């Protein structure tokens, strides 16, 4: 490894449980002394990744290289697959603390040191020192079950760091605490990190926690890394709509890149700072609610709208405004604006984040049955007549526009069935991700309001399914 600063290097890691793939080709590296957060919704694979680093799980594919102090005093890089947890130079802070109920606070913390054969007075010194660090000095002889959640958390942290690990792994350690406690602990954790100087790998689903604590954030979803960057990068320049939606509040809208530094959305052209998206190409645009300026009369206003609602949120007002083009924007401002009144708004070029669209239409793997029928999502669909080589059983791709997929209340009303998986509001419509019963994803634009988890029937008119056989594509 050329960069002497890297302490863990993960390459092409994959893991499946049964036929569910939890991690898909994950690669990242972690620098010494960093506070890295793995951030994502439940099920994204972040805890699985952490547990693999800790040694409680083995990868199916890929390597985890760690800096290793070998016996000669030399440092080398080693693939830790197959090395059990008790031999790895890391320690974990578990989500529900896992403090040993049959030992008191002192013995819990001393546990690892005793196993290493550290002499008694050294154990004493180190345990006391670490207790002081977590502000639990008077609690040595206490029974761990008598401690509050926050206190147990500190003991768990103390127990881990007293062993002077190279890397500290934290698995959603603050999840079980109430809000105030969590915020206080976040500050303490940050201070601890700065004081100790060891590498922290932190797992959480709370994006504000990740932004507060981290040097680097790794955003994950569905087993893949979505984006790696500093909190500021992730917040200001999300690379796709998932990250934009997951981090902070945002307005995500369909737009068209007119040319470099000019984008069109919500019915108007705006100057922006992004380049390289081509000309007249569809893009996604992200605007943070606090970045829209409004006023009853605003100098330099670019567009206008009507205030729909205004709610006091303590620090600011949260408003929903319907623009002159019929899009709904979420806006935050320190001033209140009356519902029903017309307001003028503007957005600075810096505050417009343009993102590549991950897709512009559905492209789905299917199998040809005959000239007008295909097998898709495990069911038979009638489609528009197929040109080219029509042989039963050959693979093909079906192209369907988002707005042409109909969702029905009852599964039997459609040709296939599925579950609403993810909902993205795009200002004037919803962009849904629907997971079919066959495990595939289809994307739908609709004005209907659905809930995550709703079971739906999927119906598509034949004329809206355009099928291309493989050789047609290669032309």
């Amino acid at each position, binding site marked *: 490894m050329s960069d002497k600063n890297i302490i863990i290097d993960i390459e092409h890691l994959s893991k499946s449980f049964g036929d569910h793939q939890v991690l898909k080709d994950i690669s990242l590296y972690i620098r010494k002394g960093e506070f890295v957060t793995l951030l994502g919704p439940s099920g994204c694979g972040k805890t699985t990744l952490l547990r693999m680093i800790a040694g409680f799980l083995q990868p199916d594919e890929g390597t985890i290289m760690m800096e290793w102090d070998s016996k000669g005093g030399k440092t080398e890089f080693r693939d830790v697959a197959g090395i059990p947890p*008790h031999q790895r130079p890391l320690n974990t802070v578990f989500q529900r603390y896992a403090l*040993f109920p049959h030992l008191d606070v002192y013995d819990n913390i001393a546990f690892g040191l005793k196993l290493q054969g550290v002499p008694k007075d050294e154990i004493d010194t180190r345990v006391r020192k670490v207790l002081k660090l977590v502000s639990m000095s008077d609690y040595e002889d206490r029974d761990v079950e008598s401690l509050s959640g926050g206190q147990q958390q500190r003991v768990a942290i103390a127990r881990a760091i007293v062993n002077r690990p190279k890397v500290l792994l934290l698995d959603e350690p603050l999840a079980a605490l109430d809000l105030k406690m969590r915020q206080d602990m976040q500050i303490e954790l940050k201070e601890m990190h700065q004081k100790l100087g060891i590498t922290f790998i932190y797992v959480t689903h709370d994006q504000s926690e990740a932004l507060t604590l981290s040097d680097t954030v790794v955003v994950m979803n569905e087993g893949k890394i979505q984006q790696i960057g500093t909190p500021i990068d992730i917040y200001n320049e999300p690379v796709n709509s998932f990250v934009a939606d997951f981090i902070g509040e945002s307005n995500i809208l369909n737009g068209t890149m007119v040319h470099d530094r000019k984008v069109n959305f919500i019915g108007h052209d705006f100057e922006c700072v992004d380049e390289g998206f081509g000309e007249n190409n569809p893009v996604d645009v992200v605007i943070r609610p606090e970045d829209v300026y409004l006023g009853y009369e605003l100098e330099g206003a670019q567009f206008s709208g009507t205030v729909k609602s205004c709610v006091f949120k303590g620090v600011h007002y949260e408003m929903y405004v319907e623009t002159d083009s019929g899009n709904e924007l979420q806006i935050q401002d320190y001033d209140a604006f009356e519902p029903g009144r017309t307001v003028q708004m503007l957005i600075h070029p810096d505050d417009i984040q343009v993102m590549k669209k991950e897709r512009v239409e559905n492209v789905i793997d299917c199998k040809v049955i005959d000239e007008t029928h295909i097998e898709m999502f495990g069911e038979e669909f009638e489609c528009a007549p197929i040109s080219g080589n029509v042989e039963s059983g050959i693979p093909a791709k079906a192209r369907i526009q988002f707005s042409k997929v109909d969702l029905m209340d009852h599964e039997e009303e459609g040709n296939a069935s599925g579950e609403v998986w993810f909902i993205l509001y795009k200002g004037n419509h919803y962009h849904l991700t629907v997971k079919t019963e066959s495990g595939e994803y289809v994307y739908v634009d609709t004005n209907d309001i659905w809930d995550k988890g709703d079971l739906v029937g999927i119906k598509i008119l034949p004329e809206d399914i355009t099928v291309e056989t493989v050789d047609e594509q290669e032309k």
Partner: protein
Amino acid sequence: MSKRSNWAIPYLIFLVLFVVLPLVLIVVYALQDGNGNFTLSNVTRFFTDSDALSTFAVSVEVAIENTLICLLLGYPAAYILADKNLNKSAVTVILFILPMWINALMRTLATAELFNVFGFTLGKGTLLFGMVYDYLPFMIYPIYNVLLKMDKSYAEAASDLGATPVQVFGKVTLPLSMPGIFSGILMVFMPTVSTFAISEFLTNNKIKLFGTIIQENINSSMWNYGAALSLIMLVIIGLTTILLGGDEREVEGGTI
């Protein structure tokens, strides 16, 4: 729901009548002679009766041996059954629990018959074997339950802190399974000390246990002495329960 606490009153009366009063009567009869006069002679008689004392000693000895063997054989069994990696079958667990539900006398008789058929002479060895056979499931079940419910993250935390698998067991799993062990000991030791019919069958009456002499005395209308012996057994039971924390006892066979 406040007035519903009154619903416990009938039961209180019932318990006093059918639980407290009978026990009081044991004490009363133990401290009386045949004419109703207060006396300690029944109790002292026990301490001077060498037969009774040796029976008592044998009973305690057998109970301790039985409990130890059940523990040594049963803990590994419970551990294996509770470990998802080593045992994936729920049926195996059921097979271990099943004997508990068959009449104990029947099981003991079956064992004794088997010894007969194979020509083993009935004596101390067969007694112990038969006892272990009878009581092993009662040791396995509470330990299995505790191990099953144990939070896996304790073992992971210990491993994370540097403990080898052997150390994880010795320093974390074993101490945390103590409640199950105590439950098991309670469910094995006490019945063994107080049993009477089982020892008759398994040793062809060669070895008598404490329960047997109680039964003999009661049956031959030596109620006072029988009560005194029962009182002594009660004291032993009481002491053992206090030592092992009787409140933790799980209801055997509760919900499977």
